[in-house]
C-alpha cells in the first residue's frame, strides 16, 4: 500500500472496457473502495493493498497478474 512509483502498472481500464464499459463507480462499489481510489489506482498514482488487488481481479474473474504487472527498473 502506498504511492505508485510507476513500476506497478495495470490493465483496469481495458478490463473495464471488456466488461461492457463498466464504470469506475460500479467497480468501486463491487470492490468496496471509493471511486476516487479506483481512479487513483487506474492512473498508477496509488498501489492498492494486496486484498483490494485480489478483489479487483475477482470482479473481472482473471488472475491477479492479468490486472497488475510489476515492471523492471
Amino acid at each position: 500500500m502506498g504511492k505508485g512509483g510507476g513500476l506497478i502498472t495495470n490493465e483496469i481500464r481495458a478490463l473495464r472496457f471488456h466488461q461492457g464499459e463498466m464504470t469506475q463507480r460500479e467497480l468501486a462499489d463491487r470492490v468496496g473502495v471509493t471511486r476516487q481510489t479506483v481512479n487513483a489506482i487506474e492512473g498508477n498514482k496509488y498501489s492498492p493493498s494486496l486484498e483490494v488487488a485480489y478483489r479487483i481481479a475477482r470482479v473481472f474473474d482473471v488472475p491477479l497478474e492479468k490486472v497488475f504487472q510489476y515492471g523492471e527498473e
Partner: protein
Amino acid sequence: MGYSFQEKSLWLMAVGLVGWFGFYFGTVLPTETANVMPHQMALFVLAIVMLVIMQIVGHIVLAIVDRRSETDERDRLIELKGTRNAAHVLATGVLLALSAALMTDGNFVFTHVLLGAWVLAQLVQIGSQLFLYRRGA
C-alpha cells in the same frame, strides 16, 4: 476530477480553523497581557464553540449534498500521512512553548505559542491530506 466528500470536509475544517482562530488571534494578540485574562478565555471558548457548530452544520449539509461519505484504505493512508506531518509541527510547538514558559513571565505567551502550534499542526495535517488527495496518494 471532482472533490470527494473527504476533501470537502477538509476544506470546511480549514476554513473554520483559519476563520475562527484568525479572529481569535487577531483580537487577542494585539492586547498582550502577562496572563490570559477571563475575556480572552471567553473568546477562546467562543471560537471553539463556533468551530464545532460550523463543523456539525457543514457536515450535515455535505452529507445531504454528497450522500457518499464512505472511506477506504487510501483515505486511512492519507490521514495517517497527514497526522505524521502534523505531529512534527506539534512537537516543535511544544518545545517552543516550553522555551517561552521558561523565558517569559505569566502564562500568556506559553498558552498562545502552544495554541498556535496546535492550530498550525491542524492546518499542516489538512494541507497534507488535500495535497495527497490531489496527487493520488
